[in-house]
């Protein structure tokens, strides 16, 4: 399948994304806006799939549609205010049903084209390395051990890189340009070698967020605290109303 047809599908998905963005901001009911947000996450992950970024698509679905959207739904439930201020047009259920019907239609088209694309990888092979499959004649290496095993067979050619940034380049240095590694292996190796400080920084940021969230949940404002103390004293009879 040529890239042009994929580009058309991506354009249609982008139009959908614009519609979903406007709906998520303009819609009156908060639950509907959260649902449109989830759909926009799904569309972005589909776009990532069409660009052969399977790992990114899965992570987007897991983190955004799985975790952050649930946060939003919790927020809507806990704040207990379903509707926001007046002045916006209401969205009817019929409009939503029509939109989801068109969405599923286009989704079916995308899935159909995506399977066609998977079966014929040779035309778009020049655009990236990740879509090269073992059918092309190259070996498909999953782990670093596989690379070292192949490298040990060709011991004379081996030159160990000092900074192990990209496993693809390392594999090319070892044995030639036929070797293809999985995207997950490359990202994992890069995170633990060249980007280790950034990785630790991200972990620290998440730790600070966890500590901040727990301390915020335990914190009660001063006014509320004094009210509670007053109530306790009134209940004990120490203070009059």
């Amino acid at each position, binding site marked *: 399948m040529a890239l042009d047809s994929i580009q058309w599908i991506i354009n249609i998905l982008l139009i959908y994304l614009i519609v979903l963005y406007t709906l998520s*901001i303009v819609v009156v009911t908060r639950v509907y806006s959260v649902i449109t947000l989830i759909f926009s996450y799904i569309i972005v992950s589909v776009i990532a799939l069409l660009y052969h970024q399977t790992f990114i698509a899965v992570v987007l679905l897991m983190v955004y549609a799985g975790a952050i959207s649930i946060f939003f739904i919790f927020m809507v439930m806990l704040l207990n205010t379903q509707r926001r201020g007046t002045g916006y047009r209401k969205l009817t259920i019929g409009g939503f049903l029509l939109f989801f019907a068109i969405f599923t239609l286009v989704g079916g088209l995308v899935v159909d084209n995506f399977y066609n694309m998977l079966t014929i990888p040779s035309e778009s092979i020049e*655009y990236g390395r990740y879509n090269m499959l073992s059918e092309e004649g190259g070996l498909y290496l999953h782990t670093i051990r596989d690379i070292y095993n192949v490298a040990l067979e060709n011991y004379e050619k081996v030159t160990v890189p000092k900074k192990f940034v990209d496993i693809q380049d390392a594999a090319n240095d070892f044995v030639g340009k036929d070797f293809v590694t999985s995207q997950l292996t490359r990202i994992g190796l890069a995170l633990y070698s060249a980007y280790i400080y950034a990785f630790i920084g991200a972990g620290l*940021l998440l730790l600070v967020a966890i500590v901040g969230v727990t301390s915020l949940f335990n914190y009660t404002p001063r006014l509320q605290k004094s009210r509670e103390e007053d109530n306790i004293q009134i209940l004990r009879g120490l203070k009059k109303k």
Partner: protein
Amino acid sequence: MLFEQHYTFIEKIINTYTLFFQLSLVALVLISLFGLLIVRRDLVTVLIATELMFLNSVLILIPFCYISSGIEAEIFILFILVVAAAETAVTFAVLTNFDFSNFIQKNIKNN
């Protein structure tokens, strides 16, 4: 040789980031800015618009993952995800712990 490499890379960028893609990205950024700056009645809307801005940055980087041979864009997307998740958790805690009734009463008393 170097010039040829650069030329092919620029050609890939032009082929991947089409005019429609660029225009739609501009539209998406403008919509999320509209939610952030103009529709400021609701805190949840502002939060949703912030998430949409993060999603825009991810969307800009996804085609770059496709055309580049390195993995810098993927790493960038992962870190954007981390920041978005941390921001959402902290805002969730602030919003749920913030006593709106006190805030409203205080404002009414002042008025």
